[in-house]
């Protein structure tokens, strides 16, 4: 029986959500791993856009940075950053975006800016927004991938860097965002999806061997659990082999 790490289960489950031919806005780290794993397995025609400008990148190795040379060299085309953000992303051409965060709240709002109640006296200064707010706003759908740490799953984020699904019902319609927002949250414990009625994140699946109590222990709010809680299919040995092969090249 295969065993896997936290990052591996997140990457495999994330990759399964991608369908061939989709356009995918790719950040560095796990999002890049996920997208390239899918491209190397069931979705060879996945169209990857990196925010630095490469359109249709096909990296052999995973890049360390969002603007690595291999992304440009393997791309169908390299465009300027204004074109990426204004035409491709805001223009509504991207199917799916992957995001991570230091904090996520019960409505999928994400914080990558500061920890602590006072922006001007932060407890921790994080890197900031980057492309995240526009990915959250404009991609047709968003998948959040992050480790399920108790300090990260909070009732309300300290700072809304990227807009989620609530609490107000018009959280996304008022600003006119065309994307559906974070409709999947994949952690190393399971999968959360918004409740169709009020958009509150709900545990819909746990990974093999994970108990609901493990998830509750690492979530700061009383997390809802779906009536029919699923168990994720375990990563296959093919999936793990493809993933480890990809990582070993990088």
């Amino acid at each position: 029986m295969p065993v896997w790490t936290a990052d591996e289960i997140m990457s495999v489950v994330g990759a399964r959500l991608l369908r061939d031919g989709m356009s995918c806005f790719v950040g560095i780290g796990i999002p890049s791993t996920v997208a390239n794993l899918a491209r190397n397995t069931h979705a060879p025609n996945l169209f990857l856009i990196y925010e630095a400008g490469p359109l249709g990148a096909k990296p052999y190795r995973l890049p360390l940075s969002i603007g690595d040379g291999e992304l440009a060299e393997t791309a169908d085309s390299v465009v300027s950053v204004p074109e990426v953000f204004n035409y491709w992303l805001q223009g509504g051409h991207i199917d799916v975006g992957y995001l991570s965060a230091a904090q996520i709240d019960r409505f999928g709002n994400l914080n990558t800016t500061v920890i602590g109640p006072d922006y001007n006296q932060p407890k921790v200064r994080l890197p900031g927004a980057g492309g995240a707010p526009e990915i959250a706003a404009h991609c047709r759908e968003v998948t959040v991938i992050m480790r399920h740490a108790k300090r990260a799953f909070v009732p309300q984020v300290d700072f809304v860097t990227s807009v989620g699904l609530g609490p107000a019902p018009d959280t996304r319609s008022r600003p006119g965002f065309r994307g559906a927002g974070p409709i999947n949250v994949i952690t190393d414990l399971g999968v959360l999806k918004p409740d169709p009625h009020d958009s509150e994140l709900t545990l819909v699946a746990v990974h093999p061997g994970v108990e609901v109590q493990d998830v509750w222990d690492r979530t700061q709010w009383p997390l809802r659990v779906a009536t029919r809680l699923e168990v994720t299919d375990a990563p296959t040995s093919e999936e793990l082999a493809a993933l480890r092969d990809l990582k070993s090249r990088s």
Partner: protein
Amino acid sequence: MAEHLGLSDAIFRYVQDGDTVALEGFTHLIPFAAGHEIIRQQKRNLTVSRMTPDLIYDQLIGAGCVRKLLFSWGGNPGVGSLYRFRDAVENGWPAPIELEEHSHAGLTNRYVAGASGMPFTVMKGYLGTSLGEIAPHVRFLDCPFTGEPVAAVRALNPDTGILHAQRADRAGNVQVWGISGVFREVVMASRQVVVTVEEVVDVLERRPGDFVIPSMAVTAVCEVPGGAWPSYVQDHYERDNDWYRKWPEVSRDRDVFSAWLDESVMGA
């Protein structure tokens, strides 16, 4: 028309204490040598703008050149934190810095508006975010046709834009290829433009995916081979990922950083 100058002359002439300067380059073509010259000339009270401050602004901040930072993502890509940036924000060392924080799209559009000679431009962003509450150069408008809310971002016109490129010719035309980020926008938005290049050649042989910035839009060209290290220059040298991975070791501690700065920048 661009003038060919030595790097120290160009920085001496075109960067003054208190200026707003933009040293751009999205992972690719980051003008490190020009940044180090600013540190050596001990420029002070600069407002510096960059989408990704990267190591170059970590160094400028740690060296005490910066009064205000405009940025949109302040990490060491794929590695972690920028410790000099964090130390300045969290502890005010070596001096407190003022932050103006954006999303990538927001800062990009500040340059686009500046390049376009407009006082502002509009985008769908900031709406509903905490960024929209703190960003000083963002306002909200309703579309005069549909009533939809949009964000207006104010134009940014740096005193001096500083960029690195592959090549220039004797007339000062500049050739760039690969990831170009906001290169064009910074050139068009800035009052003065300094470009460091890997090489000066007689004729710019055009190549796929390149563009040429006419000399007319450039103030000074400086031949500085290796001037983007440890970032990279497509078809010249690779990104020095090891140095990026090593940077936390150099920068986490104030004394270690200061010793590195003295030896590797001030003493260079």
